[in-house]
């Protein structure tokens, strides 16, 4: 049944839809029509897969984390290595798809939002590759925190536009990118970074990320017992889960519990948020009593989003996917363990998923399997990791 969503109106059960100003409706209609045409065009899809292969280096392998599994003494842990994509995360799968669509639609410019800069870098990368002009909207606060990625984007030829509205972070950068897009839709394509936003964005990003799950199904000898992925907006998780929805496989999404759910400083949208509208979509979001959107907290900038993709809200409500939370500290512990045991430094985002696997594996049998989506590599996070683990590593 779940393959039936979204419906014509972009609804996933009671979630999703198009809650945007009238001025944006035309832009969404145009996008929806072009997307449907592109997805039905074999040549377009062939191009997309060719780029994934020759430019991004897909298929990404699955690595059996043997040392880690042995140490935990339970289920066998497998890692889907999205960290081995060009630019170091799953983000590029989606950026390639959308950039090709932009070109197909005859747009010359793309705009994107970014928090930590990972999606901004992916957008700047494909802009360079496909000859598009690129503006990346980024909160002033994030520009300060993510110097290195700001420089990478500039090096790739993109313009980084500082956003000083609202709380000067990802949600405000997203607002600003949408505002700019709507005013410049004639020549501009909005390249969104996760399975969020108004219809057809959540569907489009899912369909450009499902390659993660499609490959995994082929690569695993048997279906895994569990699949675990971290959830910010939810694109790596949606891409990983989607091809497994009809199977007898347990699916677990991991949100950032930050300093702990009880502290109020977290990004645990599904467990702590309420139904509302964010960036054009009905879903769960962190907000105060009267409906003002609140700032989330997570050590990982990629999970630091006050909303969640509408399809995740739907999968949570139907019970098909279970969602849990992992704290900053738990994620850092998992990051350290994977580095030491397997020689892989994961992104802090991905370490959230890994931490959940580490929790669950000991309670499972040795012949059972957990597949973890290792959404990105940790190079971008070394500064943060040094701040928190510096002492421990020196010993």
């Amino acid at each position, binding site marked *: 049944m779940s393959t039936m969503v979204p419906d014509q*109106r972009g609804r996933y059960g009671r979630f999703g839809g198009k*809650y945007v100003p009238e*001025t944006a409706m*035309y*832009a969404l*209609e145009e996008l929806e029509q072009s997307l449907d045409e592109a997805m039905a065009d074999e040549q377009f899809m062939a191009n997309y897969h060719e780029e994934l292969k020759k430019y991004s280096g897909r298929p990404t392998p699955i690595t059996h984390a043997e040392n880690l599994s042995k140490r935990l003494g339970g289920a066998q842990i497998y890692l889907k290595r999205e960290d081995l994509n060009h630019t170091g995360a799953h983000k590029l799968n989606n950026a390639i798809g959308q950039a090709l669509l932009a070109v197909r639609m005859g747009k010359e410019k793309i705009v994107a939002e970014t928090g930590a800069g990972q999606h901004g870098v992916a957008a700047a990368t494909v802009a360079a590759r496909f000859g598009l002009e690129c503006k990346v909207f980024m909160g002033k606060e994030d520009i300060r925190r993510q110097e290195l990625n700001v420089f990478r984007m500039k090096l790739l030829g993109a313009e980084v536009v500082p956003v000083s509205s609202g709380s000067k972070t990802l949600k405000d950068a997203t607002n600003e990118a949408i505002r700019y897009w709507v005013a410049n839709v004639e020549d501009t394509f909005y390249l969104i970074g996760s399975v969020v936003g108004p219809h057809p964005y959540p569907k489009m990003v899912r369909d450009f990320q499902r390659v993660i799950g499609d490959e995994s199904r082929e690569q695993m000898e048997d279906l895994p017992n569990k699949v675990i992925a971290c959830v910010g907006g939810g694109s790596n998780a949606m891409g990983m889960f989607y091809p497994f929805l009809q199977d007898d496989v347990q699916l677990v999404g991991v949100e950032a519990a930050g300093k702990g759910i009880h502290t109020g400083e977290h990004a645990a949208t599904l467990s702590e948020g309420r139904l509302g*509208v964010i960036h054009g979509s009905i879903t769960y979001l962190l907000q105060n009593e009267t*409906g003002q959107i609140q700032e989330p907290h997570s050590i990982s900038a990629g999970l630091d989003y006050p909303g969640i993709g509408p399809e995740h809200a739907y999968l949570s409500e139907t019970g098909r996917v279970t969602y849990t939370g992992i704290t900053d500290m738990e994620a850092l512990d998992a990051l350290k363990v994977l580095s030491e045991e397997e020689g892989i430094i994961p992104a802090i985002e991905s370490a959230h998923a890994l931490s959940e696997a580490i929790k669950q594996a000991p309670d499972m049998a040795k012949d059972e399997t957990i597949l973890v989506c290792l959404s990105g590599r940790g190079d971008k996070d070394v500064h943060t990791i040094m701040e928190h683990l510096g002492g421990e590593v020196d010993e």
Partner: protein
Amino acid sequence: MNKRFEKHVDGRSDLFIPFIVAGDPTEEATIKLALMLQEEGANAIELGIPYSDPLADGPVIQRASIRALEHGMSLEKAMNIVPKMRERGLEIPVIVFTYYNLLLQLGEERFFALVRENNIDGLLVPDLPFEESEEWRESCKMNDTALISLVAPTTSDKRLTAIAKEATGFLYCVSSLGVTGTRTDFHSSVFEFIDRVKSLSPIPVAVGFGVSAPEQVAKLKEYCDGVIVGSAIVRQIEAQVDGLTNEETQVEAIDHIRSYIRDLISPYEKLKINT
């Protein structure tokens, strides 16, 4: 049919519909500004509810929202200001301008209870497009409340026809793409667009987004039934924030804004008509 809309909006072609943000900079200033705007010939007031993420608004209204939120303004509190305006003589319709999330959190039942208790006349939800608004259209009808619809130059003919057919109060024509804010000039095709809307709309058509100069008002007067002025007024309020906050200087600050308004809408010759 809503009585205040009937009296002050229906059938008119010189509509001046100002927008102010509730609580910008204070509740008392909002009340005084509303009364002043009525004195200057406003036919209805759009009372903007401050929101953390105003997707349809430019920097001027974003800043006003932040000012109002700093004092704890909310949808419910804003709706509770209206009876105080009425007590002090406000007769024209009040339209609550709120983003959908705020409305969802307050809840439909509570919202309409407040509409009835507080003599509120209209609702405008900038991020609730026609396709998602059926339920609210019904409940607005049942509560004698106008649900103001927006159309933009990019709105397709098919949607325009459907929207115009269901529209109540007045039809809000967005002058240009993008967000609210002052603009020095309109694209020439805007006037064709307004003509198209006029020919389809059984109710008054007012144009908003970017109206900030008397020359624009004079030109628009030939094509439609009125103007909606937001950012230009909010910008004046911003310039007078200190004066408006201080009781001693409040009257002077209001008069400053008053003379701006008088000049802006002079093409309508409102004061001549009213006196």
